[in-house]
């Protein structure tokens, strides 16, 4: 399967994403932000980093890159898009995901491991995460506090679009386990059509035991499974 990992000026998790996908047995390549086409691609990863220096607002300028027009079209055609950290911010700014990511409530940059509860297995990004499994993955952000107005939050809940919430090691969704003040402890969401997802934590940094956790691989395994299903449906 072909993964396209976008590369903006000051992306810094692009190589990690490529490494994780390749290590899990699939092909990945970098696509420069000036490219107007994604080429032969089955999944797009918008990686973490500080695209355009986080000037104005995180992700605000990256969304106008030529490659983002291609990503929008790819998503409109049902292609799978996963935004990680700054990638989540870019997708929110681009309107591909609802809400916004604002300054952490304690104004601190948080670089630590967190625990994630998977709220639903019904998405191409969560289907293979074992039932009840609490994921341990790192975060590294200063602007990861998820915000949306009440109407949007109600829609997210009703549509089962909240994919991951911050929780403690036992899986309890508590305010103490919330590193940034995100509303409803939201760590990651998907769009209504369920083909675009974003999360603040970094699954690509937790795909091998050497790095302290390989829980992030379940998110990638879910994506692989979704693509296999799609390919099988096409062949049949």
């Amino acid at each position, binding site marked *: 399967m072909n993964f396209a990992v976008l590369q903006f000026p000051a992306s810094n998790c692009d190589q990690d994403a490529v490494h994780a996908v390749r290590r899990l047995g699939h092909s990945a390549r970098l696509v420069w932000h000036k490219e107007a086409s994604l080429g032969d691609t089955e999944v797009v990863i918008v990686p973490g980093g500080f695209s355009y220096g986080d000037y*104005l*607002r995180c992700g*605000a*300028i990256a969304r*106008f890159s030529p490659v983002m027009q291609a990503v929008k079209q790819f998503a409109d055609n049902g292609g799978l898009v996963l935004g990680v950290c700054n990638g989540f911010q870019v997708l*929110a*700014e681009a309107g591909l995901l609802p*809400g*916004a990511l*604002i*300054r*952490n*409530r*304690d*104004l601190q940059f948080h670089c630590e491991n967190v625990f994630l509860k998977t709220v639903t297995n019904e998405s191409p990004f969560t289907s293979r995460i074992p039932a009840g499994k609490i994921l341990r993955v790192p975060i590294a952000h200063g602007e990861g*506090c998820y*915000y*949306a*107005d009440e109407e949007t939050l109600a829609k997210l809940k009703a549509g089962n679009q909240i994919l991951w919430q911050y929780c403690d090691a036992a899986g309890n969704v508590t305010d103490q386990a919330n590193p940034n*003040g995100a509303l409803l402890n939201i760590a990651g969401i998907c769009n209504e059509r369920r083909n675009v997802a974003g999360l603040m934590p970094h699954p690509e940094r937790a795909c091998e035991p050497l790095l302290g956790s390989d829980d992030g691989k379940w998110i990638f395994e879910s994506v692989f499974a979704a693509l296999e299903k799609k390919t099988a449906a096409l062949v049949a």
Partner: protein
Amino acid sequence: MKAKIIITPKKAVLDPQGKTVQNALAHMGYTGVTGVHIGKYIEIDLAPGTDSAAAEKALNEAAHKLLSNPVIEDYKLEIV
């Protein structure tokens, strides 16, 4: 000729910077401060003789699309 744009966080959005500054002001003894909201100020230089109505229309669009994020921010635009 200039455009002046003031961007502020929406009232419902958590503004930890504003809150921290408000607490600092209270510590310094400035009483009666009931809220601090921290935003951005953008000044845009316009070519002399620019049609101000057209500029206002264009910059409103730009403010909506790029300069502010309507999900979390409000803005005020003034052409002077």
